[in-house]
């Protein structure tokens, strides 16, 4: 009986902590909880590193951002399409000028 009561307390406590920190709520609470976890993660890692006495290698900084690059293909394609007529006319004029210069 005491063992079962201990188990019940442990499981109930874990469930209560999850409920209290907003982990089981709606989407807004979930994203707030994720933000809090992200903010708390680096100091926690640093404290653990100090406790165990070793240094983790520094994370390499990646310049690429998927968020910014997501639509870049579509944007570049449509930019190329929008300037295509003027670019084509420029190249045609240059080509005709070159041919004229050759025939002089």
């Amino acid at each position, binding site marked *: 009986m005491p063992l079962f009561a201990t188990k019940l307390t442990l499981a109930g406590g874990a469930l209560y902590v999850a409920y209290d920190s907003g982990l089981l709520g*709606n989407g807004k609470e*979930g994203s707030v909880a994720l933000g809090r976890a992200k903010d708390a993660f680096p100091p926690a890692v640093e404290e653990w590193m100090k406790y165990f006495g070793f240094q983790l290698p520094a994370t390499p900084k990646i310049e690429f951002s998927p968020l910014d690059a997501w639509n870049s293909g579509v944007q570049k394609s449509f930019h190329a399409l929008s300037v295509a007529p003027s670019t084509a006319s420029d190249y045609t004029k240059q080509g005709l000028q070159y041919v004229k210069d050759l025939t002089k």
Partner: protein
Amino acid sequence: MSEKELGQKWDRCLADCAVKFGTGLGLGIVFSVVFFKRRTWPIVFGTGLGLGMAYSNCQNDLRSHYVLQSKVAKEQ
């Protein structure tokens, strides 16, 4: 709904999905260790519950823009 609003909703959905997955996994592990002699099924069940909650939240969030919400004046 504007594209910016839709993007924010999707961001919230993904964040909530990650949180609920982790919570479900964690609680599943706790229950598996404490009550069910370290079997796998409570962990899978907990993870599934978390993902289901995240899906339901996402669905409500994305639909909320189109659902009529009445505000009934509270009678004093």
